């Protein structure tokens, strides 16, 4: 998997361009990227999530970078803050994305 960017598209049409490495914090996205079955996602590096709203997907992307920064870190790990009003939707999204 070469280094590049991937575009994540929310149900309401918002686009988030993130590092491939960050996106692969999600095991579900990772397996999509790695599968050589010629997914359309693989060709144009764009993945649409018809069940995840822009607000939630933004938070998910923040988490990807948080996870990258603090994995194998020697600094103390701050808590990843989840706004209570997003908690339920984020719970379902994280379950789907496996991260």
């Amino acid at each position, binding site marked *: 998997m070469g280094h590049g960017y991937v575009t994540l598209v929310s149900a309401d049409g918002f686009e988030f361009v993130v590092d491939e490495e960050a996106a692969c914090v999600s095991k579900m996205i990772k397996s999509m990227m790695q599968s050589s079955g010629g997914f359309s996602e693989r060709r144009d590096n764009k993945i649409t999530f018809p069940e995840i709203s822009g607000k939630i997907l933004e938070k*998910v992307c923040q*988490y990807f970078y*948080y*996870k990258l920064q*603090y*994995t*194998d*870190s*020697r*600094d*103390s*790990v701050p*808590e*990843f803050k*989840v*706004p*209570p*009003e997003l*908690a*339920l939707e*984020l*719970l*379902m*999204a*994280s*379950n789907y*994305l496996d*991260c």
Partner: protein
Amino acid sequence: MGAVCSRNNRNNDNNNSDRPNRALRRPRPRTPAVKRVRDPSTSPEFLDSLLPPPDTLLACSVRCVAQSLEGWHERDEDEGDIENIDTDDEGDVSRVDLSVLPSDLSQRVFEDLVQTRRLTARVTGDFIGCHLTEANLRSYPGLTDDWLAVLATSAPNLSSINLSGCAALTPDGFNALAACVELESLDVSECPGVNDNALAAVASMSRLRRLACAGCDGITGAGLRYVSGATKLRCVNLERCNGLTNGLVYLSGLTELERLDAGWCNHVDSNDVTSLRSLKKLKHLNLARTKVDDQGVATIGSLSALETLNLAGCRITDGACFLLGGLTALKELSLEWCRVGDGGVRRLASLAKLEVLNLGYSSVTDEGVQHLAPLVKLREIDLDSCQVGDDACKALAEWPNLEDVNLSDTAVGNLGLKRISKLTRLRRVNLSYSNVSDDGVMYLENAASIRSLSLDTRMVTDEGLGYLAKLKDIEELDLFGARITDEGAKHLRHMPRLKTLELCGGGITDAGVKHIGDACRELTLLNLGQNFRISDAAVPFLLQLHKLGSLNLQYSRISNEGVTQLSQLSNLTTLALKGCNRVSQAAVEELRAKCPRLSEVGLDNATASA
């Protein structure tokens, strides 16, 4: 100082030296702590410096949902409290509606609440419509009848509930569970509130497969009538139900039953056992320490599906063994503490599938054991305190799968050890108080499969320990009364994986502790009691043993200064300092303050508990 090396010092109580108490003074070794899997190419020092990885987003979200549930109710409770009425718009945050979640996710939130002890009766009510399937509330603090009623109403689809150790529950609370008609597993062990009436709830649980009521003294037997309709039951645990009389009759219709545990039920007798005759699928039966005698074994002998049978401490004789000989599916049998001798034991030779046999404290002799030679599948044999010697070992040598051998307190000597040393799968060998000496230990030179070895006898010395250099993977070594000195302790450098070590023969000084500290970094238990020459100078070597959880330094010369330094052992939970007259109570208190995990310190005769 005659008592210095006596085993009586090992525990603080049980000081009688009669035979029966030996068992009490020699507890089975603890299960080793879970091993952390490590990449061997990375140095432990580096990995230890890393912090745990960040939580998954799922875990963060679960935690947040759990917190907002709790917060919502707190705000609710604060209503009317003038200081807490804010003008901000937080009050508009709508109540968390868990029913939008898939049931596996609401289950996760529930489990997080339980683990973090945030679950309350009101939060439980929020799970209405969530289709929770499991509630493990074992020893949950403050769980009341009303709360349990909320659970039963909000989660009527539960398939498994564990309420063991919930002391505040009464029969009324348990009766609320009648609403959970889909229950397959119910555990109310160690609940003092369980009595015959509490079991009435079970009558509506037609899908119940597993019921555990261990340690519920309130069950008299009549209560089991409510269980009689639960015909899908596979597993019933009634262990230590001391009020149980004439109750097993209600189980006679449970023809699917595969496992019944009625061990230590003081009033269960042969008449009760007669009711089990119809349980043709029973595979596992525990009747240890009940009043069952030969007459009861007549019934048991007809349960041809039995694979494990525990009759330890029952009043059975050789005649019973004749009846057991027909149970050819048996894989595990315990006749520990039974009055059976050679005449009976020879009848067990027909149990060709037997893998585990416990004849400890029975009347069997060499002759009886030799009759068992055909049992080639045996993996474990316990002959603790039997009148057996080297001739019995001829039979043991015939069992190629033998892994676990207990010959403690027997007349087995060097010749016997030579005979069994040829076995290639030995893992646990107990030769405490046997007649084995250094010359016998020599035969274990190549027994590299051994993980646990007990050579607690005065006839083993430094020379014997020297023969064990090839036992590189050994994890437990008991040389309690062996005459090991600092010279012998040098040999421990060949045993880097030792987790437990006992050296209490009096010959270890500070120099010997250095050998231990340098070599055995995996130690979690170290017993150096009765080595009266160990002083504060040994403490720096002990501090190298970071994993140490249990340390015994009783009757040593350690002083206040040394004890204070032990606070650096961050995993220490128990410390024995009996007879250390240079240690003051104040020093112990200071140590306690620095070591939050330290739960037991034995000083003199008073064992203080935090």
